């Protein structure tokens, strides 16, 4: 058929995919489409119109100015581009509009396929209170605390905190990315923290709704990758450890999470699949947990492809993006849970165009580049010598992924791969990544989400 999608659960065929993103993930999605024999439309902003990767698409169309709000976040312009090019489906990548329920709904209403979950699923999981409630109903372990919004009555709030036990964390229901949250260590500071966070939530997220949870002191960040079709099938593809973070931004990810016994995480993953079936989830998704003292605590579900999906692809030997597209076409999953076998260990380093000391974004022209290659090494990037890194977007310019039979071997392979990687002309975080892979505690595995920030403070003080 033509580019128009047949919009039913059983048959949602399309032959042209519009990729509503930029950079390495746009290229990653394009490759998956090509491998599936699908035509591609890539959109871009004025700042990206000279990007070489655009030539790989069947159509490369500039839809607006450099500002993301007028291009990659401009739903009207993207829908117009899809209509004019005959695209039957839109892949949002990650970031930008990938978790925008309104965008998902607008695409489906227009008779096209959103390669991602339904608007209802996105809405449910985007509201932290609704998400927690859904998870508790499915038996997914959650952080101690009520699955309802905090009441206005200060005495009632004090009672909830006392029942959870200090320290507690007060969070905006519509928040994310580390914003709209405060840790409270004692009762005397609770009321002020609630008032400040409520006002911040009102201004930043448009809703004053707050919730409260137990604050975990030294947790790790563990994720479970799921894949669901529209026929009620759901599988999980292993787990990842993304604890190496700075200001809630992941720097290095690995799969599997070290030191977690399969029999400990399998029931949690099964509960995640139950939750997916309960909310009618379709496509790829990631359940994020804090993990402390052998216990898992659900924090949120990302209803999209993750930046770090390659480490799961390397260990589970599956093309997650292709599977995501096939699910969007209405196909049943090609794998059952019994077919999923994870092998070896994988690391991913996010290569950012930023100063390794100050972390300020570094736009400019790449004058030279050398990337590693060989067995078990993968580089996902859109940059090349002569590429101009624009100042308008996220600083991620590439991902270096290695896979080896054991964690120790993968760690050594990443250290070697980083030594072979060179990007000239702009500042990057490569020196930081190299230093991290010389760190003994990281090499041992199991560092918590505060480790990197503490490590950076100690380095700058030395």
């Amino acid at each position, binding site marked *: 058929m033509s580019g128009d999608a047949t919009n039913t659960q059983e048959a949602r065929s399309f032959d042209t995919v519009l990729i509503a993103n930029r950079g390495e993930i746009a290229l990653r999605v394009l490759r998956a489409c090509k491998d599936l024999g699908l035509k591609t439309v890539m959109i*871009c902003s*004025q700042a990206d*119109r000279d990007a070489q990767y655009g030539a790989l698409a069947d*159509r*490369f*169309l*500039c*839809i*607006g*100015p450099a500002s993301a709000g007028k*291009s990659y976040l401009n739903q*009207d*312009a993207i*829908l*117009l*581009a899809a*209509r*004019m*090019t005959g695209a039957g489906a839109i892949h949002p990548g990650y970031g930008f509009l990938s978790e925008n329920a309104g965008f998902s709904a*607008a695409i489906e*209403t*227009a008779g096209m396929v959103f390669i991602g979950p339904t608007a209802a699923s996105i809405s449910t999981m985007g509201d932290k209170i609704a998400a927690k409630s859904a998870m508790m109903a499915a038996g997914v372990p959650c952080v101690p605390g009520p699955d309802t919004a905090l009441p206005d009555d200060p005495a009632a709030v004090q009672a909830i905190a006392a029942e959870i036990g200090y320290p507690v964390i007060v969070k905006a229901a519509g928040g994310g990315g580390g914003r709209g949250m405060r840790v409270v260590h004692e009762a005397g500071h609770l009321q002020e923290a609630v008032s400040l966070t409520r006002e911040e939530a009102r201004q930043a997220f448009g809703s004053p709704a707050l919730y409260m949870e137990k604050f975990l002191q030294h947790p790790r960040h563990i994720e479970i990758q799921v894949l669901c079709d529209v026929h009620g099938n759901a599988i999980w593809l292993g787990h990842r450890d993304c604890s190496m973070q700075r200001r809630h931004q992941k720097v290095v990810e690995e799969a599997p999470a070290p030191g977690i016994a399969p029999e400990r995480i399998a029931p949690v993953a099964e509960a995640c699949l139950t939750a997916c079936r309960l909310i009618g989830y379709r496509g790829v998704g990631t359940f994020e947990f804090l993990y402390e003292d052998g216990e898992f605590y659900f924090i949120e579900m990302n209803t999209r492809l993750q930046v770090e999906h390659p480490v799961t692809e390397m260990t589970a030997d599956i093309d997650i993006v292709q599977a995501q597209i096939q699910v969007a076409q209405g196909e049943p999953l090609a794998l059952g849970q019994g077919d999923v076998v994870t092998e070896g260990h994988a690391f991913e380093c996010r290569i950012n165009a930023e100063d390794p000391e100050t972390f300020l974004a570094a736009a400019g022209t790449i004058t030279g580049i050398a990337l590693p290659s060989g067995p078990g090494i993968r580089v996902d990037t859109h940059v090349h010598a002569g590429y101009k890194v624009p100042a308008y977007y996220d600083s991620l310019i590439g991902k270096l992924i290695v896979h080896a039979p054991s964690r120790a071997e993968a760690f050594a392979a990443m250290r070697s791969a980083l030594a072979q990687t060179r990007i000239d002309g702009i500042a990057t975080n490569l020196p930081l990544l190299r230093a991290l892979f010389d760190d003994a505690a990281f090499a041992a595995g199991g560092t918590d989400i505060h480790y990197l920030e503490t490590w950076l403070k100690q380095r700058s003080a030395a």
Partner: protein
Amino acid sequence: MSKLDFTDPALLDALAAALTAAGVDGIEIEQSSRRLRLVVEGKSTRATMRLEAGPASAANIITALMAGIFDLETIPSELPRTVRAGDILACLRVGPVLVPVRASRACMVTRCLVDRQALVGFGDPLFDIEAHP
């Protein structure tokens, strides 16, 4: 009230028809951060959507204000051609809607850079121009 889909050609066509039937020249609709200004020109049931701002153009080039099908059929003319600021040089067709491409200043249009009926993107060069003689 439900949100209107400004990208839906059928909606724009229906709005244009309603405006024409009512003898109204135009309508401006604001919806959250979006704004549509629909102006009916002449007695055609086709509508012309005017955009408020376009990309910065190089001094000697006129660029596309938005993505669309480059439609020169609606404004037949020979080149080179002297034009005044605001003159319509061509249109970009988006479904039933025609978005005019206007001269930003008085100039000589020397060359068309796009094939007829080609899909063009925002900022794509459409015409070479020279300063008014």
